[in-house]
């Protein structure tokens, strides 16, 4: 998967949580994530993008 495809996945999941891509990345980096599995998935994709 390319970086742009991964970013698109993150953006879709962020939108489902009512967030922008940048807001979602900031929340994940600050450890301020929700408890449901969509948040868990989003967090792991953000880490994947920044590893």
């Amino acid at each position, binding site marked *: *998967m*390319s970086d742009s495809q991964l970013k698109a996945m993150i953006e879709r999941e962020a939108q489902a949580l009512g967030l922008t891509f940048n807001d979602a990345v900031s929340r994940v980096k600050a450890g301020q994530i929700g408890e*449901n*599995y*969509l948040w868990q*998935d989003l967090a792991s*994709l953000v*880490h*994947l993008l920044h*590893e």
Partner: protein
Amino acid sequence: MIGDRPTEVFRNFRDHISGLLNKTITDAPLSLTHRKDRPFAQFAFRDDADFPMAAPLFSAGLFLAVSQQLQVEQQPDQTWKLRTLAYSYHLLEDSNPDSRWIIRWEYVSHAQRRNEHPRHHVHIATIVDTPAGEMDLDKLHLSTGWVTIEEVIRFLIAEMGVKPKIADWDDQLLKSEELFKTWTRREV
């Protein structure tokens, strides 16, 4: 683990875990997300639109969301060592993300988060009255050891009434646990 490139190694591991899940607790396949040419990947159950989902379990009316974040490191002998950077296993009453959860087993490595609650922990959707006041097991991070996917499967079959497709499910789980020790070079 054996493979020419990280992609092959991650696929092999995903196929192994997905096969184990499909023989024991659910028909849903695991989907691998891997950045090209990087030693990091993630897998989860995803729907046809590539959106994360909780998979229906065989016959128990329960749902499980699975996520593992992985890293591989090539070793001097050209094999690959597998490392789990994070996992989450959420047991729910329905498939959508906002449905009521029952148990959440979670882990985040020190490489990603520090100075917080126990890295390996579980949340349980209940509050317990104690002489010291209420213990909100929903919010507290109760320490656990390393919780493998095999142990979650074992719990679901042996104690939650999920009906496996195979009779020798515990033998299959034991074999998988031995493979995991080899691939990660750790005791769990």
